[in-house]
């Protein structure tokens, strides 16, 4: 009788020493899943719920069905922000990424020394905050005394209004190019350096010239890194926020406004939480579809042959 508790304790201990390696990992990973459910999954579902309602943040909600979404489809400001965002994404793909690739190829080539000077020099702007960088460019683009117009004046070119409706999107892209070109150079360099040198040797043995080596070795071998860079750039472009906000407050006349800017304006400035949430879900669907298309085009779903 008196020995029973001891046996039980020993049993419990034996159970613990047997199963602690099954239980403990759940404890170790639980903070992430608790926070993920509370601060991501919950809000994601709540956003969907909100997007079906009209709600100014206090008082009762009014169910409007898909009303927010149908209104969104005909909202000229939203469509403008969508177009602007697409413009930024296209600009990033047409200018920032090709520039980064060319710089990476040059740094990686046997022609050039001082490799780390260029690598690190291009990389430095990413260390600045978007706020500090954009404020700096706000001054650079200033009509009267900005660095660019000062430079143009030295060349005898009349000043341009960089933050006006016609040019503001180019200016936003310039800020993005300043901050993000270097990090993409690093990504491409990582990819270039992971190409096995014997592939080039084999190509040389087969008599391939510089161009043929580039076309048939470098480009195919860069495919994984290009996919990564493409997806990261696309996701980043579609979530552009601080640059147009600080450079021109989304203006003038909404010419620089992004989807994220419009969502912020609706949700926080105008207290239309339902409408803002609908914008958020449309944004998520766009990003998801474009990621899927990119993965498909790059053959990420195809079996390796």
């Amino acid at each position, binding site marked *: 009788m008196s020995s029973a508790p001891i046996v039980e304790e020993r049993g419990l201990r034996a159970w613990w020493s047997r199963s602690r390696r099954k239980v403990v990992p759940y404890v170790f990973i639980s903070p992430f899943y608790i926070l993920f459910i509370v601060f991501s999954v919950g809000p994601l579902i*709540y956003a969907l719920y909100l997007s079906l309602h009209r709600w100014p943040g206090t008082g009762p909600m009014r169910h409007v069905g898909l009303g927010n979404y149908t209104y969104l489809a005909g909202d000229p400001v939203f469509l403008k922000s969508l177009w602007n965002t697409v413009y930024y994404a296209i600009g990033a793909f047409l200018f920032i990424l090709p520039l980064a690739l060319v710089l990476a190829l040059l740094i990686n080539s046997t022609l050039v020394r001082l490799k780390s000077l260029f690598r690190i020099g291009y990389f430095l702007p990413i260390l600045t905050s978007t706020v500090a960088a954009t404020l700096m460019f706000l001054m650079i683009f200033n009509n009267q005394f900005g660095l660019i117009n000062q430079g143009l004046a030295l060349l005898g070119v009349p000043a341009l209004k960089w933050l006006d409706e016609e040019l503001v999107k180019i200016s936003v892209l310039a800020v993005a190019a300043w901050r993000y070109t270097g990090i993409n150079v690093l990504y491409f360099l990582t990819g270039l350096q992971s190409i096995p040198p014997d592939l080039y040797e084999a190509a040389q043995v087969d008599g391939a010239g510089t161009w043929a080596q580039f076309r048939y070795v470098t480009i195919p071998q860069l495919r994984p890194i290009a996919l990564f860079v493409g997806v990261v750039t696309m996701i980043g472009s579609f979530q552009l926020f601080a640059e147009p906000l600080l450079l021109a407050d989304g203006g003038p006349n909404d010419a620089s406004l992004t989807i994220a800017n419009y969502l912020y304006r609706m949700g926080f400035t105008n207290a239309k939480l339902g409408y803002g949430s609908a914008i958020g879900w449309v944004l998520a669907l766009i990003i998801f579809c474009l990621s899927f298309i990119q993965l498909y085009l790059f053959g990420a779903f195809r079996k390796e042959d």
Partner: protein
Amino acid sequence: MDGTLTRRAQRTIAYGFLFFILISMATPFFWLISNTFKEQYEIFQLRPTLIPEEPHLRNYIRLFVEFDFAHHFLNSAFIAVAHTVSHLFLASLAGFAFAKYTFPLKNFLFLVLLGSMMVPLYTIFIPLFVLVIRLGLVNSYAGVIIPGVAGAFGIFFMKQSMEAVPNELLDSARIDGASEFRIYLQIALPLVRPALAVLAVLAFMTSWNDFVWPLVVLRSRELQTLPVVMAGMVGMYRMEHGVIMAASLLSTLPILLLFLALQKQFVQGLTVGAVKS
């Protein structure tokens, strides 16, 4: 003969282009530094001066006296350090669990973890803000730090390096009667110190430069971080260009200094996603 000439021409073009881009990128920064020592009228001159005509520190003094720069600097530092320490702890603990244990649903849970990186911030932005208000976390550092503290990327990253910790070490510690948490803390963690350093600089920089989330959570001025306060300087009645440029420069300095000290960790941290893809 012909070949060497072409090669020399190629080299000249390559260097020319590389230096052109480098100088284009560096010029704004030097212009900024120079302007922080100028009076507003000198900034406004049509012909830019690289060396200020009458250099002075008034922009910096005003930044500290009128805009309470030191106070907001400390706010940013506190949030960034708190975020970094708690993120490192949670990420390494979960990374350790994923690397060194087998348990039911492990693969499924890891897929969920990777999938969580797909949720766009702006989609959950509004409900997250409503939630933070309901939890009473609005206008508090906890409200800034907690929602993003257990990032999936950090766990994924730490799992990779935890896998290199030898199992024999862990098993012999178990035989000596160490608890699983002590094994993590005293055996696994010291062995992955290089990876922790990489993750630390990344987490610190991300938090230090963060703008949107602190902008909505921190309502009262005395709690606000540097990017939020600096963004507020733009809309002011009379924009103080010299002061704003001084703020931009000083707010970037800690990260630049950190970079000089830990260059390798920065480069590794920022490209790790590309390597692991």
